[in-house]
């Protein structure tokens, strides 16, 4: 307990409540972690261990068989497994990059300048945080087909560029940049574009690393929605769904896909954790 608690607080705190609160924290931590631990272990279980009764949490004789099987199963399928991986990586990379670029470009004028319409535009973006994409799914489908974008990468990638959360977080973070810095750049003769690209963007690195995490997580987990129907364009998430539909016989293989799926976003988060926290500190809505 001693390592955990800062003791320099001036107010009274009873150690009983401390103990209780941290027990609760540990308990919920276990609840959060166990399913993930279970799936990771399942991915390494040989076939006989997957079917023992009672089921076990931890693997005894770890094997890479499931991963090998995954590629075996997928090699014989109509579309090679590498294609699903490529689709997911491509959609994630393009969507995330475009979102960071466009959302930052739009956030800079909203955060650092007053101009006609700026208030209205930002209010609309904040309001749109308040409804989920489900509300707009059907009209979006019609817009996509009117644009002739059905069954293409851009149907998933381009709408991701204009996701409201990114603009919101970027704008809140950019507001902390001192005006004096931007004025100095202006006096030196820099254009707005140059100020945005060479002064503002390097300063808001934590914010775009955060967008990187959030967008990546969203796009990495996409199944292409209702926009993509040809097998060649389907994503890893969709392929995972197909494998899991296969039932218990493929439980180990399913777990192997899941481990591949979850590794990428989790590793990225670990690498950029402090930046994410820094950005979120400015995420508040003022009343």
């Amino acid at each position, binding site marked *: 307990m001693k390592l*955990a*608690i800062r003791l320099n607080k001036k*107010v*009274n705190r009873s150690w009983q409540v401390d103990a209780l609160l*941290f027990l609760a*924290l540990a308990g*919920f931590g276990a609840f*959060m*972690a166990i*399913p*993930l631990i*279970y799936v990771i272990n399942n991915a390494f279980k040989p076939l006989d261990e*997957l*079917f023992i*009764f*009672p*089921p076990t949490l931890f693997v005894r004789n770890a094997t890479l068989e499931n991963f090998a099987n995954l590629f075996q199963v997928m090699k014989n399928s109509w579309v090679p497994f590498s294609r699903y991986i490529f689709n997911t990586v491509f959609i994630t990379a393009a969507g995330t990059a475009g979102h960071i670029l*466009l*959302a930052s470009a739009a956030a800079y*004028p909203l955060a650092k300048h007053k*101009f*006609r319409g700026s208030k209205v535009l930002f209010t609309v*973006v904040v309001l749109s*945080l*308040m*409804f*989920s994409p*489900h*509300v707009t*799914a*059907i*009209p*979006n489908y019609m*817009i996509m087909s009117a644009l002739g974008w059905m069954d293409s990468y851009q149907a998933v990638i*381009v709408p991701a*560029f204009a996701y409201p959360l990114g603009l919101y977080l970027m704008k809140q973070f950019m507001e902390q940049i001192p005006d004096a810095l931007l004025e100095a750049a202006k006096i030196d003769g820099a*254009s707005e574009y140059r100020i*945005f690209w060479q002064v503002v963007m390097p300063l808001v690195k934590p914010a775009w690393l955060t967008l990187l*995490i959030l967008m990546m*997580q969203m796009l*990495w*987990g996409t199944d292409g929605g209702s926009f993509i129907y040809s097998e060649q364009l389907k994503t890893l*998430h969709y392929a*995972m769904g197909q494998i*899991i539909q296969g039932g218990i016989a493929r*439980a180990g293989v399913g777990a192997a896909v*899941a481990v591949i*799926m*979850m590794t*990428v*976003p*989790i590793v990225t*988060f670990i690498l950029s*954790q402090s930046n994410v926290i820094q950005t*979120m*500190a400015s*995420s*508040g*809505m003022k*009343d």
Partner: protein
Amino acid sequence: MSPSGLRNYWALFGKDVRRDKHLYVLLAPYMVLFLLFTVLPVVISIIFSFTHFNMLEMPRWIGWENYSKLLWNDDVFLIGVKNTLIFSVVTGLVSYIACFLFAWLINELNPKLRAFMTLIFFAPSISGNVFFIWQIIFSSDSYGIINGLLMQLGVIYEPIQWLQDPKYMLGIIMLVQLWLSLGTSFLAFIAGLQTVDKTLYEAGAVDGVKNRWQELWFITLPSMRPQLMFGAVIQITASLAVADVAMALAGFPSVQYGAHTIVTHLVDYGTIRFEMGYASAIATVLFVMMLGSNLIVQKLLKRVGE
């Protein structure tokens, strides 16, 4: 405004726009896409909700008919509303409080442990829809980890059909939703806590703050009200739109509509029956509910620490 005043206004307007043209250029690409894929769909959806539209014939204006059918003659929709409300009150509220409570507890830890616990709590929500693990955990046969455990302990003798039985369905989906829900708002709270001015606590102690609960209510919560607002918006929106987990775990449609929600109803009419006008009315009702509950909760949050 007099005619000359109006002319002056427009002249000024034009001048401002010309001066700020670079700003509009920076803004344009995002805003065009935002209007096209977010604002326009909402407008279309509201308009379609007053029509009969099946994607084959031209939409036909029918006024409030969709709404009256939806609210008075659609029992399944009412089941969906009931389930959604149970979800958002239980999951949304519990998860919001849990997000704050865990962030608050984690904030007391030393930096290394704090980073580790943040990862543990945040990992499920970013791990790319791996909530299907719960399908294996609550699997209906004895290989399911819960069934296996309970049979081993002798609590039950026959495996329970967790995800097919309406008795358990809703509870399990809530549990999984809770597991998934410590996301963006959780991070916002952790970050918000780190920005609270430390000297306020000392000042509070001098002013007679006696215990940690008073400290929490009078100092910590008011200091991070902006983050609390942001978190509330994210949580309310997510909890009213619950559907993906329900459809993945309980199937679609679920047995006796046990896990039916507003969004699954929307999916049913929109993508299976192609009654677009009706589906748009469902979307509009959901939209109004989200907006309404956000405004109410924001009003409530302003009272924190009073």
